[in-house]
C-alpha cells in the first residue's frame, strides 16, 4: 500500500446520528480534526470528516500508570501501544456506489446490469466493523469537489494535512445566497476578494459590491503586513466598474469610472418607508407619502421638500392667518392629511434632502447605468466615500437593490415568456453585513427579501461579516454556502452553523481553526463540509488565475478602461 493510501485506523463502532468511531493505528499527531478520510466497505465508498480525537485506554489504569518509570523503554512502549490508543470521531458525509472490486466477475456483472449513478450521495448507511480508514487522496477530493479548471471549478484552498486542492463550484455557489465570515484578521476579506476574482474570471455572474472600506476595487495594502494587495479593478480592467457615491468620491488615489448621483425622482415612498426606524417615522407617514405620490407622482420628493413648514399668509382685510400656498400645511389641508403628520414627515426627510448625492438633475442616469452594466456582464464596486452613516448605507443600498429587484424580476418574467435571453446571474456583495442585516435593520432593507426570494430571479447575496450572530436569523437561514474563518465567539459559531446537520461535530472544527488562513467550507454549495488552508491572494494567485495576464494593466488598457472602452484584448 502506497503512502497515499496508508491506513490510519479501523472502524470500531458508532452510527449515522452519533458519528462513527475508529481506532487510530498511527500517531495521533499525524491526524487533525477536520481531516478528510475515506472508507471502502462492500460496494460503498464513504467520504467522511474527522471531527474529534480522543485519548483512550483499554483500562483507565494503564493511562494513569507511567509505564516508562516501571518498565524498560522498549517494553513500556509495547505496553502503551497496545493499551493506550486514540479514538477518532468520524462524521460520515457522502457515500458512493463503487461496485465490486474492478476486474472481478461480480464487477463485470455489475457493470453489465446497467448504467450506474456514480455520483456521491448523502450517507444512508454505515461501513461495517473494522473497515479500514485512510486519509483521502487527491483523487478522492477531486471526486467530491471537482477538478480545478480555473473557471467554474475554482480552487479556494487545500486540505490541511496533505495539501490536496479543494474547489468550489462557482456556478452552484451563485445559485443561492452565501456568506463569508471570520474575525478581524482571519483573512475573510482576502477570501472574499479571491472568490470574487474567481467569479469575475469565470464569468459566472455579475457582482455588485457595496465596498464600505475601499478594499475590493482599488489596489490597497495589507493591514497586517503592509504588502501591496491587488484590487479587482487593476486586474480586470473595464470588466470592473468603480462607482463613487456622490460627485468627487474616488477610490483612494484611483478615480471612479463614474459617480453615482441619485435623482429625487428615483426616490419612492417605499424607499422612505424602509427607513422608518432610522428616520423615526410615525405610523401616519405611509398615508402622507401615498398622498404625496398621488399629488406629485415621481416629483413628490422635490415638491415636498420645496414646501415650507409654518408658512402663513395673512388676509389684509380680516387679518386671518392661513397656510401659505407653498407650505406643507396648505398642501396637507388640500389633500386631507393631518397637518402635523405632514410637517413632521417633512422635518424628518430634511435629513435626506441634505445628502449631497441626492440631486434634482444628475449628470447622468448612474443608477440605471449600474443595472445596465450588471445585466450586461460587468461588475460594479460602489464606494461610499465619506458617506458612511447608517442612513447613507440604508438609503443607497435600498435604492440600488430595489432597482435591481425590479430589473431582474422583469428580465426573468420576460425570459419565462419568450425563453430568449436568460437573465445574467447577479451576486450582491454586502460587506460589514451586520450593519444592514441586523435584527433591527433587516426589516428596513430589501436584502432579506433578496436572500429569501430573489434566487428564482437570478439574484443572490454574498454577505461578508465578522459577527454572524448579529445578522438576522432569517437571512442566515437562507445562506446556501457558508465559508467561515476563525470565530472566537460561541454565538457567532452557532450562527454560522444554524440550520445545518451535524452542528455539534462541526462546532469543534470551527472553533479550532487557525486564526489565519484557515476556513471551513460548509452548506448547500459544497458537497460536504471541509476545513481548508485557504489559497493565498497574492501575485502567484493572479498568475495562476490570469496566466500571463496577471501583471497590472499596461498603459493602453488602463486608458481604455478609464474611458469605459472595451478591453482591447477581449
Amino acid at each position, binding site marked *: 500500500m502506497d503512502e497515499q493510501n496508508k491506513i490510519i485506523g479501523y472502524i470500531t463502532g458508532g452510527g449515522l446520528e452519533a458519528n462513527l468511531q475508529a481506532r487510530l493505528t498511527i500517531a495521533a499527531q499525524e491526524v487533525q480534526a477536520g481531516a478528510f478520510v475515506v472508507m471502502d466497505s462492500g460496494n460503498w465508498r464513504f467520504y467522511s470528516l474527522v471531527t474529534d480525537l480522543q485519548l483512550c485506554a*483499554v483500562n483507565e489504569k*494503564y493511562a494513569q500508570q507511567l509505564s516508562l518509570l516501571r518498565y524498560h523503554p522498549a*517494553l513500556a512502549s*509495547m505496553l502503551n501501544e*497496545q493499551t493506550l490508543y486514540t479514538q477518532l470521531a468520524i462524521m460520515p458525509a457522502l457515500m458512493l456506489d463503487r461496485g465490486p472490486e474492478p476486474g472481478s466477475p461480480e464487477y463485470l456483472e455489475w457493470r453489465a446490469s446497467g448504467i450506474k449513478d456514480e455520483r456521491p450521495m448523502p450517507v444512508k448507511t454505515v461501513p461495517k466493523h473494522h473497515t479500514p480508514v485512510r486519509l483521502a487522496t487527491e483523487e478522492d477530493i477531486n471526486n467530491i469537489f471537482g477538478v480545478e479548471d480555473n473557471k467554474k471549478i475554482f480552487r479556494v484552498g487545500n486540505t490541511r494535512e496533505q495539501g490536496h486542492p479543494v474547489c468550489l463550484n462557482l456556478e452552484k455557489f451563485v445559485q443561492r445566497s452565501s456568506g463569508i465570515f471570520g474575525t478581524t484578521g482571519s483573512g475573510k476579506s482576502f477570501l472574499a476578494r479571491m472568490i470574487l476574482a474567481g467569479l469575475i474570471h469565470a464569468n459566472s455572474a455579475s457582482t455588485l459590491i457595496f465596498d464600505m472600506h475601499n478594499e475590493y476595487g482599488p489596489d490597497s495594502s495589507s493591514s497586517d503586513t503592509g504588502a501591496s494587495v491587488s484590487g479587482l479593478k487593476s486586474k480586470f480592467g473595464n470588466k470592473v466598474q468603480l462607482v463613487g457615491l456622490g460627485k468627487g468620491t474616488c477610490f483612494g488615489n484611483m478615480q471612479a469610472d463614474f459617480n453615482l448621483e441619485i435623482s429625487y425622482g428615483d426616490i419612492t415612498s417605499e424607499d422612505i418607508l424602509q427607513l422608518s426606524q432610522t428616520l423615526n417615522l410615525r405610523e401616519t407617514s405611509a398615508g402622507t407619502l401615498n398622498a404625496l405620490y398621488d399629488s406629485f407622482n415621481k416629483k413628490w420628493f422635490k415638491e415636498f421638500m420645496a414646501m415650507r413648514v409654518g408658512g402663513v399668509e395673512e388676509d389684509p382685510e380680516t387679518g386671518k392667518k392661513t397656510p401659505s400656498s407653498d407650505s406643507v400645511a396648505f398642501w396637507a389641508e388640500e389633500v386631507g392629511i393631518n397637518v402635523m403628520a405632514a410637517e413632521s414627515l417633512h422635518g424628518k426627510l430634511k435629513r435626506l434632502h441634505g445628502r449631497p448625492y441626492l440631486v434634482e438633475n444628475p449628470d447622468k442616469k448612474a443608477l440605471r447605468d449600474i443595472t445596465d452594466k450588471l445585466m450586461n456582464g460587468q461588475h460594479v464596486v460602489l464606494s461610499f466615500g465619506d458617506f458612511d452613516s447608517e442612513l447613507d448605507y440604508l438609503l443607497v443600498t435600498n435604492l440600488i437593490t430595489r432597482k435591481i429587484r425590479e430589473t431582474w424580476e422583469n428580465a426573468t418574467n420576460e425570459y419565462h415568456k419568450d425563453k430568449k435571453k436568460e437573465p445574467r446571474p447577479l451576486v450582491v456583495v454586502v460587506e460589514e453585513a451586520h450593519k444592514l442585516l441586523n435584527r433591527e435593520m433587516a426589516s428596513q432593507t430589501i436584502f432579506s427579501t433578496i436572500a429569501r426570494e430573489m434566487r428564482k430571479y437570478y439574484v443572490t447575496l454574498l454577505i461578508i461579516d465578522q459577527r454572524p450572530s448579529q445578522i438576522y436569523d432569517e437571512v442566515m437561514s437562507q445562506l446556501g454556502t457558508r465559508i467561515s474563518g476563525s470565530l472566537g465567539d460561541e454565538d457567532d459559531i452557532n450562527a454560522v452553523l444554524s440550520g445545518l446537520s451535524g452542528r455539534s461535530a462541526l462546532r469543534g472544527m470551527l472553533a479550532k481553526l487557525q486564526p489565519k488562513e484557515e476556513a471551513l467550507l460548509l452548506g448547500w454549495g459544497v458537497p460536504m463540509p471541509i476545513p481548508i488552508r485557504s489559497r493565498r491572494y497574492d501575485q502567484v494567485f493572479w498568475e495562476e488565475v490570469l496566466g500571463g495576464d496577471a501583471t497590472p494593466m499596461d498603459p493602453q488598457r488602463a486608458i481604455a478602461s478609464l474611458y469605459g472602452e472595451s478591453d482591447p484584448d477581449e
Partner: protein
Amino acid sequence: MNQTLNSIPIGKLLRAENRQFMAGCRVSELETPAMGALVRVSLEDGIQIYGLITRIAIYDDGLVRQLVSGVSIPVEISADNRHNRNLPVEIHVLTVGYAQNGKIFHRLPPRPPLSLDALYLCGEDELVCFTGLGYGYLRHILRLAEDPVEEILLLHLSKAAEAQREAGREDWYREAVKHLIGLLQEDYQRLNLVLDALEGLEL
C-alpha cells in the same frame, strides 16, 4: 515435523488427562528437566503430545521422615535415600499442543497419554518448531490457576527466545510479549505481574 529430533527421556507417566499429566523420574534423572521446559510424550498411534513443565515436586516417605527426625544422617545413608527412594520425583506437565501426521497444533490432544508412556525433553530444534508456529499455546499457560504463571512464562520464554534467536528469528520474543499483552490487557494486575517478571529479559 522431524521425527528424529534430539530428545532426552526424563521419566515415565504416572497419570494423565487431556489438560495436564504427571510423570515420575528418579532423582538421578533430575538434572535435565526444568520448569518451563518443553517436553513430549509419543503415543503409540503416532500422536506426539507436547507440554510444559509447570512444577517439579519431591514428596517425603516414611524413611525420610525417620531420617529427618534423627540426630544426624550419614552421607551414604542420605545418598542412598536420594538415589534409591521408593517415591519418584513428580514432574507436572501442562499440555500445550500435539503433533499428528507431521503437523503441530497448539490445542489439546484428542486423548491423553497413557501411564508409563515415556516423557522426553524436547531439543532446541523441536522447541523452535513448536514455538515457531505462533503464540496460541500461551493461552494454556495463562489458564493455570495454582502455579506461578509469571515464573513459568519467564523460564519458558527465555529458553524459547534464545532458541528462536539462534534460529534467526530475532523478533520472536518481542511478538510473544505483544501477544501476551493482548491476551492479558483486560487484566491489569495480572499483566503487570507478568511484565514485572519479564522485565529482565532483553527484547
